[in-house]
């Protein structure tokens, strides 16, 4: 199959050999699970359990709220011991509302609905099953999958792309799941394709994973699914980039893949979809790569959602040497964290403990305008210009240069010879622009409230005056009447 060229991109050292040959193992059942209510893009879920409730594995514990949200299920059986704040798997380290579940050690499933012939389901039923199972994109963006299916069904999908790129260094969880569970993934892919009536199905896998490609090709035999080997390059596994390489089409700025008739899902999401529909198992666990130079035995673990990261590190033999930096996700786009009590969530693809030699800690020096970042940017932006605008507080100028199209892949920061934290600038600017937008919306809303109040006060004042005038008129009329009556009496 003909592949198309991708502008930009970088070739970071893969480091995947640390964990790529490690079979997926299940992490022993943790004692306590911390399940955050916000593990997806959109509104947080609302708890439907109370402290003290006994729950079974797979039971709904928090339901989706609003149009963009996702349900959350009990990862194991046990007792709800707290509904409150727990440290979030987020660089801010802020607390997030969390359901704390104490496991009873039995790991007993609740009722699960088994579907014998999933492909006979109607497309909207598939989406409904996916929504009920709380499945979100497992590649890291955690967008509710059912919503993506529904939106795509409405707009008509030509091509379904299954993303097996896994371009982030160190991470091997998608590689392993494709090698070990290819049959299930292929069934999941067929379900997704059926749900959106896709005409063409492509599985894109980077060519640094030959075993995964072979396993997927074998499993896909006899189906319309085409497994495509793509050149290994970062950020090949990014949605817009994989579309460009496989179809030659570019997602318009500010647009969605659906605008050009494409839908992209991660391969691990396909596995979750298959489990949800065939076995009625909601998304309560995921494969996580534990790796990095500071980890004694890098490995791939099947982990229940809510497991504290500390348990993963301990199970991997602990630290070989003190970690200079802890990262959730991959080293290019992952989030730093310090508190190892943070739980694994639906979007956690990796837990990395990196040595000082693995992270760039060089001091930033002035930009020499070498434009290496421009060549590395896979979106075709001018990182150096945007950063210069942001540095002088001209966020609007940066936005005019396409800041909103930045995918924060980190390629520019990676190649910058002056070690300027370019993506940090962009993340700051995006956050600040979003905050300004929020406060503008609030201004407009409160202004309406103020106007409504002024109007109401004026109306009340007017009504009072009218009522007073009426009373006065009535009084006068009465007085006149009495006077007239008196006069008539006197006259009589």
């Amino acid at each position: 199959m003909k592949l198309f060229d991708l502008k930009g991109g970088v070739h970071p050292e893969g480091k995947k050999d640390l964990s790529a040959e490690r079979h997926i193992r299940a992490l022993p059942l943790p004692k306590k699970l911390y399940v955050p209510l916000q593990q997806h893009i959109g509104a947080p879920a609302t708890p439907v359990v109370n402290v003290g409730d006994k729950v079974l594995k797979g039971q709904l514990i928090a339901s989706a709220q609003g149009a963009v949200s996702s349900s959350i299920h009990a990862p194991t059986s046990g007792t709800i011991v707290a509904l409150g704040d727990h440290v979030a798997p987020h660089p801010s380290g802020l607390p997030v509302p969390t359901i704390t579940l104490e496991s009873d050690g039995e790991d007993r499933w609740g009722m699960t609905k088994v579907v014998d012939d999933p492909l006979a389901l109607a497309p909207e039923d598939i989406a409904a099953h996916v929504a009920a199972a709380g499945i979100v994109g497992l590649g890291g963006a955690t967008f509710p999958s059912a919503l993506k299916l529904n939106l795509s069904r409405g707009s008509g999908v030509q091509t379904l792309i299954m993303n097996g790129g896994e371009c982030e260094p160190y991470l091997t969880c998608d590689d392993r799941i494709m090698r070990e569970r290819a049959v299930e993934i292929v069934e999941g892919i067929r379900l997704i394709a059926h749900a959106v009536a896709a005409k063409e199905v492509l599985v894109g896998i980077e060519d640094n994973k030959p075993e995964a490609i072979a396993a997927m090709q074998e499993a896909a035999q006899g189906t319309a699914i085409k497994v495509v080997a793509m050149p290994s390059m970062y950020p090949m596994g990014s949605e817009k980039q994989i579309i460009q390489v496989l179809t030659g089409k570019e997602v318009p700025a500010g647009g969605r893949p659906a605008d050009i008739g494409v839908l992209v899902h991660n391969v691990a999401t396909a596995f979750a979809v298959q489990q949800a529909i065939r076995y009625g198992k909601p998304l309560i666990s995921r494969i996580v790569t534990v790796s990095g130079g500071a980890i004694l035995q890098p490995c791939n673990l099947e982990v229940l959602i809510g497991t504290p990261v500390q348990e993963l590190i301990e199970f991997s033999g602990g630290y070989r040497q003190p970690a200079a930096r802890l990262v959730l996700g991959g080293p290019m786009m992952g989030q730093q964290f310090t508190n190892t009590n943070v739980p694994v969530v639906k979007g956690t693809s990796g837990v990395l403990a990196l040595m000082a030699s693995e992270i760039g800690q060089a001091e930033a020096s002035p930009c020499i305008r070498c434009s290496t970042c421009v060549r590395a940017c896979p979106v075709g932006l001018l990182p150096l210009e945007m950063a210069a605008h942001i540095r002088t507080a001209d966020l609007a100028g940066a936005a005019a240069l396409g800041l909103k199209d930045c995918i924060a892949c980190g390629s520019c920061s990676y190649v910058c010879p002056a070690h300027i934290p370019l993506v940090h600038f962009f993340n700051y600017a995006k956050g600040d622009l979003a905050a300004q937008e929020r406060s503008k919306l609030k201004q407009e809303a409160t202004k309406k409230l103020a106007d409504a109040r002024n109007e109401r006060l004026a109306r009340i004042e007017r009504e009072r005056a009218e009522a007073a005038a009426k009373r006065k008129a009535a009084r006068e009329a009465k007085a006149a009447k009495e006077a007239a009556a008196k006069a008539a009496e006197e006259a009589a």
Partner: protein
Amino acid sequence: MLIAAVVSLTLLGTVFGLLLGVAARYLKVEGNPLVAELEQLLPGSQCGQCGFPGCSGAAQALADGSASLALCPPGGRAVMQALANKLGIEADLSGVEDKGPMIAEIREEICIGCTRCFKVCPTDAIMGAAQQIHVVFREACTACGKCEAVCPTESVKLQPIPATLQSWYWNKPQAGEAA
């Protein structure tokens, strides 16, 4: 004699009053339209924190150029940016936001339910009734501070809005500042 004085003064008053009324109608000076536009951009809560008599006074001062763009604390940087765009001035936003966004909070244990804050709130952001604990609607509060000023028990206080996962974002990097 006295009657003549009263009558003449009344007549004079009536005539001049009529003249003024007619003049106000026919010789009316159109207000600076910019003032109205600027007032539209301001929060309209008439809190007076800018030191001018309400938002219209502030808009007037802005149009004259006698007031700073950063005059509106409840409006914050969004309003400042909007004003700068309207007036065609460069706004230096970097120095603002020293206090951060604030919000009124009622300490329920010392709220006596006097309804004073409820009555002065320009955006109806306080809910309450006599002898009942009052509460603040966070989304509607502009932190104008009027409630804080009238509370007899100091139960209402402006507090910084705590950062949440939704509102948190990376700080501006200091690195490469020399570039």
